[in-house]
Structure formats: structure tokens, C-alpha cells
């Protein structure tokens, strides 16, 4: 039973409300900045190579008409979902629509691996039934196991992205550890030259240190799921630093994964924090109340 409950911790509905707003708005950004060639693929279908899911569900070939409809539907549904009004209806539209959007975007022979957590998040968010609508949802402290399951799924997908990257590195070498000592970063920099990288080419040992740190970090990433409080924060900062380094060296940002780290953050504390601040601005003598609220919020933070 303990194992089963691990998948469904009770977490405040407010965290899901914040995730809805941030992630649905992020999808709109994503459609313009990252997976942004889907509509273009409706115009030029020459290189279209449907992926397994597109074949399984017999999805139509991208065309100007269907990619334009998909675009409009996604924008509208994301804007609605982000307000926390009718978030479940909007969410059940966004999940399949964005999955199809990304599926088309990656149906040209190249698949990126930064969208797992975001796509999983979009499928699990609508399973959570809110108790408050609109802006009130951001402060809803009622804890729900359904919310906990959704948050846990996003956390698992974030961590899977790292851990499975280490698995892929082992697999490609025939299940031996050769990747960290190989010339993979040199290879990457030669193919995408830029000033930081070209300076590093002269110091291959530094690239090897980075490869070892990255590989060990990825391999140990599942530990983050059981860390609490500031240790979990430190781990999150390590991985965000890892992405900053990747962005500097490889020009690969992984923002769709990075934004999903918010599933680990105690976002439900934002509203109480602001309330306390405005209260203590008016009345400095509420120390007892604050201590009590703080303790309550801390209990959930590790979940």
C-alpha cells in the first residue's frame, strides 16, 4: 500500500492550478519558438515521414487546412486552460492536439527528446478535478491525491528524461561506459561551432570532465524523487545548471523539460506567502500565525 500511495501523495490543488497556467502558456510559446515548423510542414509535405503514433491512429497527412485548424484550436484551448476556468475541457483538447502538433513537427527524420515531461503533463493535468475556479484556484490549499498523482507523473517524466539519457548512452556503446571518455562534445562543437565551444576544443580534458559530471548526474537523477526540502532544491539547481552549460556548449536549451521542474516546486505556497506579506505589512504582530502556516506548507513541500 505504501508503494501505491507513493504515486498519489496528497498535494494542494493550488499547485495544479499554477502548473496549468504556466504550462498552457508555455505551449503557446513552444508553438512559436521551439516546435514551430508544424504549419510549414503542412505546406511542404515532401519530407513527411509519419512516426509510429501517427500511423497507429492513422492521422491525416499534414496540410495547410488541418495544421491551421490545429494551431487555432491549440491557442484558444491553451488560453482558456491557463485561466483555470473550464480547465479540464480545455485540457482534454490541448493534450491530444499538442501531441499531434509535436508529432508532425518531429515527422521529418529528426526527433527531439525534450518534450516528454511537457506532453505527459498535458495529459495528466485534465484528470485533476478543481474545487475552485479562476484566480481562486491559485490559493486552494485543499490537498488532493488526484493532484498528487498528476504532479508525480510530471516529476517522474522529468527524471526519466535524464535517467533514460544515461541508459541511451550505455546502450549505444553496447552496454559499456565509453561515452564519458569519448570525443562526443568535440564532435558536437565541430558541427556547431561558436566561440565558447571553439575555445574548449583546445582543452579536451575539460570536455571529458563535463561528460563525466553529466553522465553521473543523469544516472543518479532518480534520487531527486526522494530528496526533500533544500536538498531537492539543490538537485534541481544542479540540473538547471546542467542545461545552462548545454545551452552554452551545444546551443541546446531543453526548456520544455526545464519548465516541468516546477512540478517539484511548492507553488501552493505562493498565495499564502503574498497574503502573509500584505498582512504583516499592515500588522507586524502575527508571528504565531505565520509559523503555523509555514509548518503546514513545509509538510507538502517534499512531496
Amino acid at each position, binding site marked *: 500500500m505504501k508503494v501505491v500511495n507513493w504515486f*498519489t501523495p496528497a498535494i494542494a490543488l493550488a499547485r495544479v492550478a499554477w502548473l496549468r497556467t504556466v504550462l498552457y502558456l508555455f505551449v503557446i510559446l513552444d508553438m512559436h519558438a521551439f516546435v514551430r515548423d508544424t504549419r510549414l510542414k503542412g505546406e*511542404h509535405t515532401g519530407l513527411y515521414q509519419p512516426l509510429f503514433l501517427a500511423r497507429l491512429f492513422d492521422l491525416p497527412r499534414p496540410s495547410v487546412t488541418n495544421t491551421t485548424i490545429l494551431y487555432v484550436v491549440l491557442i484558444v484551448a491553451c488560453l482558456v486552460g491557463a485561466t483555470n476556468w473550464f480547465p479540464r475541457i480545455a485540457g482534454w483538447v490541448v493534450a491530444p492536439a499538442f501531441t499531434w502538433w509535436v508529432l508532425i513537427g518531429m515527422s521529418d*527524420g529528426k526527433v527531439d527528446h525534450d518534450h516528454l515531461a511537457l506532453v505527459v503533463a498535458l495529459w495528466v493535468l485534465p484528470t485533476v478535478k478543481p474545487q475552485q475556479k479562476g484566480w481562486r484556484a491559485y490559493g486552494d490549499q485543499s490537498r488532493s491525491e488526484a493532484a498528487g*498523482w498528476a504532479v508525480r507523473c510530471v516529476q517522474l517524466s522529468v527524471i526519466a528524461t535524464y535517467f533514460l*539519457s544515461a541508459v*541511451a548512452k550505455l546502450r549505444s556503446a553496447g552496454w559499456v561506459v565509453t*561515452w564519458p571518455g*569519448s570525443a562526443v562534445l568535440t564532435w558536437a562543437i565541430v558541427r556547431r561551432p561558436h566561440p565558447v565551444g571553439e575555445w574548449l576544443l583546445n582543452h579536451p580534458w575539460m570536455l571529458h570532465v563535463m561528460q563525466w559530471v553529466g553522465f553521473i548526474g543523469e544516472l543518479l537523477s532518480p534520487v531527486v524523487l526522494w530528496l526533500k526540502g533544500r536538498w531537492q532544491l539543490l538537485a534541481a539547481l544542479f540540473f538547471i545548471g546542467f542545461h545552462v552549460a548545454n545551452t552554452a556548449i551545444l546551443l541546446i536549451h531543453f526548456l520544455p523539460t526545464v519548465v516541468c521542474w516546477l512540478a517539484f516546486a511548492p507553488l501552493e505556497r505562493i498565495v499564502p506567502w503574498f497574503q502573509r506579506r500584505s498582512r504583516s505589512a499592515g500588522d507586524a504582530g502575527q508571528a504565531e500565525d505565520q509559523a503555523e502556516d509555514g509548518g503546514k506548507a513545509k509538510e507538502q513541500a517534499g512531496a
Partner: protein
Amino acid sequence: MAVVTTGGAGDVRLGRAGKGLRVLVALVGIGLLVNGSVRATDDVWPFGPMSQYAMSVPDDAAITYTRVSALTDAGTTVDVPLNIEGAGVARAEIEARIGEIVKDPSLLQQVADGWAKKHPDKPKYVRLELIRDTTQLVEGRVEGPPKSEVLATWQVRR
């Protein structure tokens, strides 16, 4: 699906069925991901292996880089910007399809079409060449400038 009851602490608890189904979905998802990483390919996205930059590159590797070079109607030779804003096709898409383009260079036509459509006021592409640059590594270090080889040539149709 979700039989919801309110627990003693005011928490919204899941019913037996709702919880069981959720845990099952999570376990199946983990199973699909592990399966993908251990034996599948990118084809099964999002359950495929996280294989970006996952290969071990040997210290004596020949690093290849593919680009498209264009002769324009202004008589200049330029490297085609392989991105959405340039010719509407990403470099990775070209690299993933090299074999097909070599067999059927007419696939390069859409590079010219994409460029002409996005940049109607710029010189048009007259001839496209798919070129592979090869950089040699010796003991993990770059040795000399890259060597270039033309893989396919396409005379652009108007």
C-alpha cells in the same frame, strides 16, 4: 472513474478504482519508457530512447557536417541557411535524409522553393549542391581544416 471521498484531514482522497487505475497507468507508462530506451527507436516518440548526443565518438573519428551550397541567379555561391527562417528546412532534416537525397536529388527542390517563397526579393537559387565536410580527429583533437565532398547536385526547376 474517480470515486472521491473526503478524508479525515480534509484531503480529497481517491476511491479504490481511481487510485488503482492511476497507479496502473503510471506503471504502464514507465514500462513503455523503459522498453523504448532498451530496444526501440525514435519512431515510437514519445516512448523512444533519449538518444540525442548519446553516441560514443572515438578519438580518431572523422566528423562529418552536411550543408547545402547554392549558386544564385546573381552569380554568387552561398551556404543555404538551413533553418525555418532561411529555407524552411532544418539541417537535421537534411542530414537525416542524405541517402534519399543522393538517390533522388529532386528532393532539394523544396529547399529552393522554400527560400524563394520566404525571400522573394533576394537572388534565387539556380543550382544546389549537397556537400559533406569532413574534419579528422587525431587523439581526440581536431587535425587540420575540413575536406569537402559533393554528394548530390540539383538544377533548380522554375
